[in-house]
């Protein structure tokens, strides 16, 4: 069974070239991808992640509001008992914000310029790490 990834666009920013590009690229790489569409509330993204039983949540944010929106999404996942779903962040992320994003609970950051092979490899690593405690792992 393929791994499932939810690509979410929290906040009001509507630039989703990256979100769509990542969705197509991950699908081509064999993942099952659900794209939320733009302008989603963090709580709605969390609910969708639980409902769809995804392995990873990827947030795409270009407005600069990434730290706050990531924190809110992770809090919403935890509030739904789904704090174990790893969250990764992509978009225009200055390197100085990587640590604040990790402090908020994000497990990986893929900023603009990440190549598709690096993204796919990164996603597999994130899933492998999060599955260490879950046996048996998905094939």
């Amino acid at each position, binding site marked *: 069974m393929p791994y499932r990834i939810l690509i979410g666009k929290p906040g009001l920013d509507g630039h989703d070239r990256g979100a769509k590009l990542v969705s197509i690229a991950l699908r081509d790489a064999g993942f099952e991808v659900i*794209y939320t569409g733009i302008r989603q509330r963090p709580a709605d993204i969390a609910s969708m992640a639980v409902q769809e039983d995804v392995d990873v949540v990827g947030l795409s944010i270009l407005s600069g509001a990434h730290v706050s929106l990531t924190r809110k999404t992770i809090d919403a996942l935890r509030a739904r008992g789904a704090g174990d779903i790893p969250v990764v962040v992509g978009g225009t992320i200055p390197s100085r914000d990587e640590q604040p994003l990790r402090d908020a609970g994000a497990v990986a950051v893929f900023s603009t310029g990440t190549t598709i092979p690096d993204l796919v490899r990164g996603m597999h690593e994130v899933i492998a790490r999060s599955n260490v405690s879950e046996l048996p792992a998905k094939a």
Partner: protein
Amino acid sequence: MSLIRLTTDSGLPVAAVYGPDDSDPKGIGEPGESPFTRGNFPGGYRDKLWTFRQYSGFGTAEESNQRYKYLLGQGSTGLSVALDLPTQCGYDSDDPDIEEEIGRVGVAVDTLADAEVLFDGIPLDQISTSFTINGTAAIVLALYVAVGEKQGVPRAKLRGTIQNDILKEYTSRGTWIWPPTPSLRLIGDTIEFCAAEVPRFNAISVAGAHFRDAGANAAQEMALTLQDGVTYCDAVVARGRMTIDDFAPQISFFFYTHGDFFEEVAKYRAGRRTWARIVSERYGAKNPKSAMFRFGCVCGGASLYGPQAQNNRVRVAYEAMASVLGGVQSMFTAAWDEPFALPTEESTTFALRTQQILAYETGVARTVDPLGGSYYVEALTDAMEARIGEIMAELEAQGGMVNAIENGHVQRLIAEQAYADQLALEAGERIVVGVNRFTSEEPPPDTEGYEFNAEQRRHQLDRLADTKRTREARRVVETLRELEQGARTDDRNLMPELIDCVQAYCTVGEMVTVLKNEWGEFVQPRVL
């Protein structure tokens, strides 16, 4: 292996050499004459240079007002207002759902009180102002008219543009509010209002730039934009209250210029010619001004890159030159640090200087359409025109633009092109200096992201709270009720109601909520 690609960015094949037999023998006509291949005006830039219009706005109205005055002091000849996302999507600054977005990518405008500060000391009868505003465009137009009245500037003297192009928001930019039908009605209201009362104002700027930024190539950008233009004209003509000549002269266009130099020049020349033919043949326009395709452009966006970011200065300069050789009316040159942050005063000034050097030192403005008659440019203009026509025919076959948006055709077209371009970049087929060739290990520049601090937030929230406390509550209720009534019948023009609301200091969020209750909200189609 040669590193030179033999097709343009839009995939048009290019021959080794061009001659007189390679373009339409019917010729290209004269500048200032339909179909305007050689430009809209017989005197070109000799009579009037393009407008230097730097997109700017952030934080509070006070800060943006200062930046506007600075830019005007440095030789900018028009303003271009960036509004924050809550204002664009119809939320007030005190809405808890959007707290992290206030003042971030543009200035926060909740009520007329903010707009008054934004234009304080800027004479609206002397400069033109462009607003990148769509979902709430009619409200922003009402605000501008109201500020003008406060300054004693009559409506007939106001100059500027509201983008007011909702169709591309549904596919590429995302600041939609209502579904297509009521949105087209409201756009029709603004077009009608401007024709009657604000004759020097562009009621709409049909924008391809956002298709481009979302991944469309140059031919797709132009075709999608012209098809949107057709959709708006159809909607206004269908109301039966105006002919094409009553409103077409107040339609303008807006694009991204990217790096494929001659293709960009050809894109603009082909765009002018295609629009002139549409307006004359499809709508039977009599006034030559109706057929005129006047456009602004932005250089930068997705054509700029993070690695070796200083290279972006060169990219923007070439793009600006292509735009001018294509006959642009108004231009924004992005700052080199755009991939990282809002521009600093230094970086935005440099970007403005790029235009000034182009205008005053290079000599490109000296004669009209300097590339006219070039075998290659004319052949490429013809090829571009043909490709644009094919894409428009596909859109018509989808049942028109609204259907092509609702069934996801447009979104898929753009996303697939973006993906193909990304694969070409990663495979090294498309070369970007410093990104996939001639790379270097260089840390990203130390740019400061713009952060709306706690004090600015409090300032904005305080002004909103003060406005709500001191305005006349009865007038607020009455004007909003009138707006609600007006929204229920299609045969009323809502602009007078919106101006009344604005003058009663209703908030953007209050007006939007009333209309949402009547009209509902757009539902995004699942496209992937």
